[in-house]
């Protein structure tokens, strides 16, 4: 059982245990769909939906599941919500669904989700699991937004499709391509570590 206060439980997902910047989980969608802010945001929200509902279900039926089949059970539960998210996007937001392509179904294997079930929801109350899922999702959405904003602004000169750079700006095409994702993520990780060291040494 976690001994943190509810507030700490939420905040830890944003920074201390940020799934992307600190735990390096779920990097596949992080690298693949952050070429444009709208795609990053949609991916973040779809993952949020799956994480919250999977955590709610797993934490409420945790006592019924024998530990030998827990992973299989979690995967079925996660896959169910992923399919719901996929169908929902295809029905109501077809352009986004087209842009994200196979990456929505691939949320099933996003380690953040299975990781939180195994590490948290299966050991904590429904309420705490919900807060944990909200915090982790917020951290993931934040990471997706930062990464996709940097890549879209430098790579296309736009933010959410609106021109933000002047006519003088020559887009850095590499930022939209896969190498741009690795470069940006690397710099952001270094920055996160640097901030971490600074704050620690001050304490």
């Amino acid at each position, binding site marked *: 059982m976690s001994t943190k206060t509810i507030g700490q439980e939420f905040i830890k997902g944003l920074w201390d245990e940020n799934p992307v910047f600190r735990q390096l989980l779920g990097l596949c969608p992080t690298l693949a769909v952050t*070429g444009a802010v709208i795609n990053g945001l949609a991916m973040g929200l779809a993952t949020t939906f799956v994480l919250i509902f999977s955590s709610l279900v797993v934490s409420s039926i945790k006592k*019924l*599941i*024998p530990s*030998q*089949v827990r992973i*299989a*059970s979690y995967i*079925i*539960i996660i*896959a*169910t919500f992923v*399919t*719901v998210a996929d*169908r*929902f996007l*295809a*029905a*109501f937001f*077809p352009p986004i669904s*087209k842009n994200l392509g196979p990456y929505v179904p691939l949320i099933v294997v996003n380690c953040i989700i299975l990781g939180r079930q195994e590490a948290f929801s299966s050991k904590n109350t429904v309420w705490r699991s919900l807060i944990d899922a909200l915090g982790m999702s917020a951290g993931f959405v934040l990471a997706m937004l930062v990464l996709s904003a940097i890549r879209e602004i430098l*790579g*296309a000169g736009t933010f959410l499709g609106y021109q933000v750079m002047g006519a003088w700006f020559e*887009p850095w*095409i590499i930022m*939209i*391509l896969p190498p741009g994702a690795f470069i940006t993520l690397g710099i952001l990780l270094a920055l996160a570590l640097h901030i971490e060291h600074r704050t620690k040494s001050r304490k």
Partner: protein
Amino acid sequence: MKLSVRMVVVLTSIGLLSGSFLATVGHLTKERIALNKQREIEEAIIQVIPGTVSTQKLYEERDLSVYGGKDEQGTVIGFAIHASGIGFQDRITLMLGTNTSLERTNRLAILDQKETPGLGAKITDAESFLQYWENRDCSGAISLRKPAARSAEELLPSEINTITGATISSEAVLGIVNSSLEHTRRLLKEGKLSSEAQDVN
């Protein structure tokens, strides 16, 4: 309860519950998803055959469908060829509008592509690529002008300007267009594109 029995019971019930939940979701969204696809195709037909008020599917096979665009009187005013083929990275799906004799193009629209952003992806750009496809002579094979001509006036009636730096993507589009045009011409000759024959649907 014995552990093995409990494992079976738990997994089966989770599977059944999730299956029935998904069946409901699938049922609720199925119609809308089909409608979205149909609407996307209809919008593309209207875009490539200006003046279309209704559309009709005239022919369908793998990687090639031909639609007729009709005016208010119900006369077919042009064909819209929906075709796909391999591009530089992945499949390119396009819609080409032609006149009813398949001798002139109206417009070209790219419906789906995953070419390199900033280079090959320019095949969706009106200014650098799509504008050259308007009103071209397609009674024979269309060809590419390489290196690219500076202005549209320099091009022959059956020529398309290449995108500088994206020759492969330009050629891929050209290949899809030429082969589907040839195929469609054959269908037209065989009388498979008449709007009466297919009025059943």
